[in-house]
């Protein structure tokens, strides 16, 4: 049965939540939303109803957060709690109803990003864990992992450096590039720490979109069938091997269950 990280919210019946919760995590600019755009039709082709959702999209708090960020005046505890409010709103009003209806919920970031950003800003990990402990444990967490050197060109040639994504609130005296580098390096280190703590499935996000997409498909297929995850942080050689064999295995199994579902 579905679990939370400890606290169960009022009126939440975990036994009813029969859908699947898949989290795509990763730092800014790593390609999460691109992958989700590809994953959604792929899942739908297989007959899954999909809800895709992400941080900062709730009805309640999204506008307030945006306004507050524009003013750059939020304290770090306040910002964290604002995001937690937003997350709770999304959890109760989007994710839970979808899981109750048997959907596959694909979420662009989850509590891990919220916690990582706050920890990098100096907040207490134990406090943050408690604050977010009402969150549902996902069926799988895919962490798109990238080194800061691979990340920089992607960011420069897409959206450019953003004030918050560069941690300018943390390093106000630096230029955006230096600040981005420092901030993202700290963030990535934090994600790596969490990968072990929260049992992420780590996917190397440095190859091209297609390759990352394939790896995600393999992992998601497994998660949806309730199969065990790939070993965490497997060395590069065995990882590739395991993934290749997993790929064919999943593809054939998928065809057997749903003829014509795979492209």
């Amino acid at each position, binding site marked *: 049965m579905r679990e939370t990280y400890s606290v169960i*919210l009022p009126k939440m019946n975990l036994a009813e939540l029969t859908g699947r919760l898949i989290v795509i995590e990763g730092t800014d600019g790593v390609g999460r939303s691109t992958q989700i755009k590809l994953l959604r039709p792929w899942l739908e082709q297989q007959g899954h109803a999909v809800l895709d959702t992400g941080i900062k999209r709730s009805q309640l708090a999204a506008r307030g957060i945006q306004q507050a960020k524009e003013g750059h005046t939020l304290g770090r505890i306040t910002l964290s709690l604002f995001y937690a409010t937003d997350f709770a709103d999304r959890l109760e009003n989007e994710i839970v109803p979808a899981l109750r209806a048997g959907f596959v919920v694909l979420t662009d970031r989850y509590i891990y990003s919220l916690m990582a950003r706050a920890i990098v800003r100096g907040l207490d990990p134990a406090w943050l864990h408690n604050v977010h402990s009402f969150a549902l444990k996902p069926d799988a967490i895919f962490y798109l992992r990238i080194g800061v050197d691979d990340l920089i060109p992607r960011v420069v040639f897409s959206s450019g450096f953003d004030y918050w994504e560069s941690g300018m609130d943390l390093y106000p005296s630096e230029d955006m590039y230096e600040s981005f580098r420092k901030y993202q390096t700290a963030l990535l280190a934090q994600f790596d720490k969490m990968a072990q703590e929260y049992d992420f499935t780590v996917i190397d996000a440095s190859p091209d979109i297609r390759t990352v997409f394939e790896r995600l498909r393999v992992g998601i297929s497994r998660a949806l069938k309730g199969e065990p995850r790939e070993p965490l942080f497997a060395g590069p050689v065995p990882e590739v091997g395991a993934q290749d064999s997993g790929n064919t295995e999943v593809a054939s199994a998928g065809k057997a269950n749903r003829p014509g579902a795979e492209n």
Partner: protein
Amino acid sequence: MVEGIDGSGKSTQLMLLHQWLQSEGYGVVFSEWNSSPLVRDTTRRGKKKQMLTPATFSLIHATDFADRMEHNILPLLKAGAVVLCDRYIYTAFARDVVRGMDRKWVRELYGFAVKPTAAFYFRVPLDVAMKRILEGRSGVKYYEAGMDLGLNEDPEESFHLFQGKILEEYENMIPEFDLTTVDATLPIEEQQVQMRQIVKAKLTQAKRLRVAP
């Protein structure tokens, strides 16, 4: 900091304390529950559209409190001011738990709050408080009456039931947080004398800023 259910007279007492501290030459500042300009819009929207659940109700109030703590209360305390809070974290502890949130979770949520120098709880029987409140106004608001809990369809009846539960939570917190209890049925003057005595004893460290009243 003062706590108590609506109609306990805590705000009146705090106002009187404010006057006195000012006349004594302390730098005094008020900080009210739910007053951060930054978060206010969101809270108001959520309440107006009745889109708050116990979880979001709890978290949005914690956000508001954090903003006040980080931008208002802490800097003022560092500067040596006396900060007077009309309601503090105990209001959240009472309301959120009555709404079904986990007791321990709520307490840890507010782990960043500064421990108050003096914490007064104005104890009043439910009926007295109800009478004071309902006489003074035309009706109670949705969340104030705890209508979101579905206790009763009649707002006044729901308010009564809700405040009764809040009162129970407060009673449990007196020993837990060592709250100083004031009998709120006593004459106003008498309550104020008690308050001033206790505050005076605790204010040895605060700076007298000699601000002209």
